């Protein structure tokens, strides 16, 4: 008995259990995340979250917004999107990131979750991550790992969010694995008229199909 347990789809009804209050705000500043409007009255115990009294997260606050599209171009409602990232200084709050010269931020965990809405839209609030090491002696460009699941997805699809205004993208070892003409699908661009909102649309098909990684 040691073979991997197979993946199965999340199914369509994840709202009442998986997103929690604050799930989509990694800074801890708000309750962005759960969708109480989709939960029958009296059944919201599981989306309440403990008051943690977290300190203020360090770093430049950003928003990540986007929409999710199926391979026929229709918006995907009810998908579950998870992100994982380093703190503003570029360190993961995990024992295997043992670079003690880079400070941890006790107020920042780095994990978030958001469900797409009736328009296929999602929104995270977080901070811009710092750089972390890559394979060999390389340094990765600032990035956020993203997984998408949901009804119709038999297993998670994994991708990464990079930032259009990061010059370090040119030397990123993972972006370098992606054919040049598809790299733009991994790069979040700043929304016009804002200075901290980045758009990352996820397309499962068509000319703009997002690159997904086998990790």
């Amino acid at each position: 008995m040691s073979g991997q347990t197979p993946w199965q789809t999340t199914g369509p009804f994840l709202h009442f259990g998986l997103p929690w209050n604050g799930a989509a705000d990694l800074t801890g500043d708000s309750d962005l995340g759960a969708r109480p409007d989709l939960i029958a009255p009296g059944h919201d115990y599981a989306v309440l979250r403990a008051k943690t009294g977290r300190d203020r997260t360090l770093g430049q606050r950003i928003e990540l917004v986007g929409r999710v599209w199926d391979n026929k171009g229709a918006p995907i409602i009810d998908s579950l999107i998870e992100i994982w990232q380093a703190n503003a200084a570029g360190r993961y709050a995990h024992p295997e990131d043992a670079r003690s010269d880079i400070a941890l931020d006790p107020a920042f965990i780095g994990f978030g979750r958001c469900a797409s809405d009736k328009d296929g839209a999602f929104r995270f609030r977080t901070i811009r991550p710092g750089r972390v090491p890559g394979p060999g002696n390389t340094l990765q460009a600032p990035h956020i790992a993203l997984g998408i699941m949901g009804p119709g997805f038999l297993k998670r699809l994994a991708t990464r969010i990079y930032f259009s205004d990061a010059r370090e993208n040119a030397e990123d070892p993972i972006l370098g694995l992606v054919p040049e003409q598809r790299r733009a699908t991994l790069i979040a661009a700043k929304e016009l008229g804002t200075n901290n909102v980045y758009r990352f649309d996820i397309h499962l098909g068509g000319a703009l199909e997002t690159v997904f990684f086998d990790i």
Partner: protein
Amino acid sequence: MADPVPYSRDDAAAQPPTKFADFKASVVRAPSHALIRAPHTLTEITGPSGDDIWENLVGPAVADLTRQHNGEALGERIIVSGRVLDENGRPVPNTMIEILQANAGGRYVHEYDQHDSPRDPNFTGAGRVVTDADGRYRFITIKPGAYPWYNARNAWRPSHIHYSLLGAGFAQRLITQMYFPGDPLFPLDAIANAVPEAARQRLVAQFDLATTEPFWALSYRFDFVLRGRGATPMEQ
């Protein structure tokens, strides 16, 4: 710094494809390009960690789904327990297992579920537990009912419980479903059948007399196996 020890990869002999024609919703929700193989960097091997991490992130555990309301939930009370291990047989402690399911009549509390079966005001169907140092978990719930769905004419989902597992790293994620032994709907289920046949029975819990509570509840055992670290037989 030295490159981290990678996790193993999806075992093609165990994992479903992204697209499975009999599961109609998967056809439009799969990418057309092949996935691009990427190495495991610090990003992939790390994840939320620390003694109280899950309570800090999502709140306290909910290990008894039958007693979250004023009255008791309707249906057959059951105990589900087991372990979370990796492919090398090592326990995976501090794994958050999130639980989602329909009620005894096969209906979810979600507003979109219009199945013609009663809601139970005393049963929500959501819980979460965290594994101990030996990778063990246990929770109490109601055996969920089967329900019809739109995948094909007269298609019914077998009784099942949804699980979401957050292990030690981003690459160790698992979302799956547990089925019950002897269910005549299991061999007909398009979602279970997306899994290669040799691994399909891993999704079926075992009835476990040893962990039943006499005069109170029957019990099922279900172990999860997450990806392991380093070279495993799967990779060679």
